[in-house]
């Protein structure tokens, strides 16, 4: 494969950055339209569909009965995985999980796990014998930029609306999964030399490194990740961190609103 990033696109992105605008006319810290729908998939115990610009992502939650690990007899488990299958875009190829899909799944997983929003003890049914395993699977159907935020949002929304299928497994009555918090991810991409929020596919193609920040309800950091080639300064981080705080508050409200429906 020859180098895919056309030098011309980079030039144009640099020019736009100097003019203080972006390729689709947005401002530096302006996000694209977002829509969130939950409970949209038969057979999933929790589900969400997120549309961010031209990016479309589904997340589904499934439960299984497990034997707990011997050293943690009262704890269930949580697992979050992302598939970047060839459906998502022309550049994706079939094959074993790519480093990109592994990183995506693990970053989303850490944001949720480390926020502590799932109390593993609450997943215990019979200590030492039976606990719930909760599995969030994320499926990217259309990648037009910033799949990290779309996946993070879909994952937590699916989780927060999940119903534990206790009846099907003969261990009590169905009940809503207990989720204590709404960790939200905000991602930034260096485009034309500066960071922007919610990059689209052209900005990612002609851009550089990304920073992914997951924040909890109190504005604490639960996960950070830098991806791709590039370096940043502490001052740059301080600036995007402020933007991330605002972005996360907005998206968290959207999740709350969906639940209210």
């Amino acid at each position, binding site marked *: 494969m020859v180098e895919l990033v056309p030098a011309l696109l980079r030039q144009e992105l640099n020019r736009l950055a100097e003019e203080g605008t972006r390729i689709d006319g947005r401002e530096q810290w302006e996000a694209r339209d977002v829509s969130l729908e939950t409970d949209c*998939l038969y057979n999933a115990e929790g589900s969400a569909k997120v549309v961010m610009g031209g990016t479309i992502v589904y997340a589904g939650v499934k439960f299984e009965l497990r034997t707990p690990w011997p050293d943690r007899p009262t704890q269930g488990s949580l697992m979050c995985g992302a598939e970047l*299958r060839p459906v998502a875009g022309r550049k994706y190829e*079939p094959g074993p999980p790519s480093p990109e899909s592994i990183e995506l799944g693990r970053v989303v997983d850490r944001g949720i796990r480390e926020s502590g929003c799932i109390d593993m003890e609450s997943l215990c049914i019979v200590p030492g014998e039976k606990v719930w395993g909760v*599995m969030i699977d994320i499926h990217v*159907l259309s990648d037009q930029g910033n799949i990290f935020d779309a996946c993070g949002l879909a994952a937590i929304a699916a989780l927060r609306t999940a119903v534990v299928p206790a009846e099907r497994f003969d261990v009590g009555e169905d009940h809503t999964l207990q989720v204590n918090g709404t960790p939200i991810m905000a991602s930034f991409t260096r485009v034309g030399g500066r960071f922007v929020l919610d990059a689209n596919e052209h900005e990612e193609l002609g851009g550089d490194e990304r920073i992914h920040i997951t924040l909890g309800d109190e504005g604490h950091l639960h996960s950070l990740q830098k991806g791709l080639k590039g370096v940043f300064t502490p001052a740059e981080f301080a600036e995007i961190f402020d933007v991330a705080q605002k972005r996360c508050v907005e998206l968290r409200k959207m999740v709350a609103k969906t639940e209210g429906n």
Partner: protein
Amino acid sequence: MMGGYGDVKLLKDDGSRLDGRKVDEMRPVSIQAGVLPAADGSAMVTHGLNVAVAAVYGPMEAHPRKIQRQDRAVIDVRYNMAPFSTSDRIRPGFNRRSREISKVTAESLESVVLVERYPRSKIRVEIEILAAEAGTRCAGITAASVALADAGIPMRDMIVGVASGKIEDTVVLDLDKAEDNYGQADLPVGILPNTGEIAFLQMDGDLSPEEYELAMEYNFKAANEIHEIMVEALQRRYDGGEA
């Protein structure tokens, strides 16, 4: 077909089915074209509770070289069930059933796409099942046909995926999940609505020659109904500029 579960009743005393359908009545079907911005063509088919999404990419250069054909395009199909699409979660990765369905679906689509127009190229068709309630391979074929049309790939006809089967010794159209689990036969086919030819054929269970004839008759009837919905979806797409 599991067969042998004689104690599960699938037909009511009035001859109608558990969900109230008549023996030759199919589940509700709705289709939307152009649902995925990243794809060259796409479609979503909701067939009963099944949800199938298809994306088409190409024609593009065929890579690696050894898959190229000098005189035509190859059609590369992946049929995949999302982990959350079934009652028990499916582990991502290699799966014999998916591989077989992908193969025979690809061969069916190659039968209608004018592949000779694109020598040495590849057309990728990605079928993703988001929710499964019996009949996903047929919903996937239908979605792939619409997505190919949406991508502007020339075809000599569409393929409509439909299935009939047998429950309690009665031939019925379009098995749902319970009927599939406890029924006696399933006959999924891919029909060319204009020529009446068959491009996709599988069957398992037990059918007498006469039952086969009746099941096929139902399938042809259903293919015409679904074909109309496919055409409407494409018209909406071009008129209203959906997606």
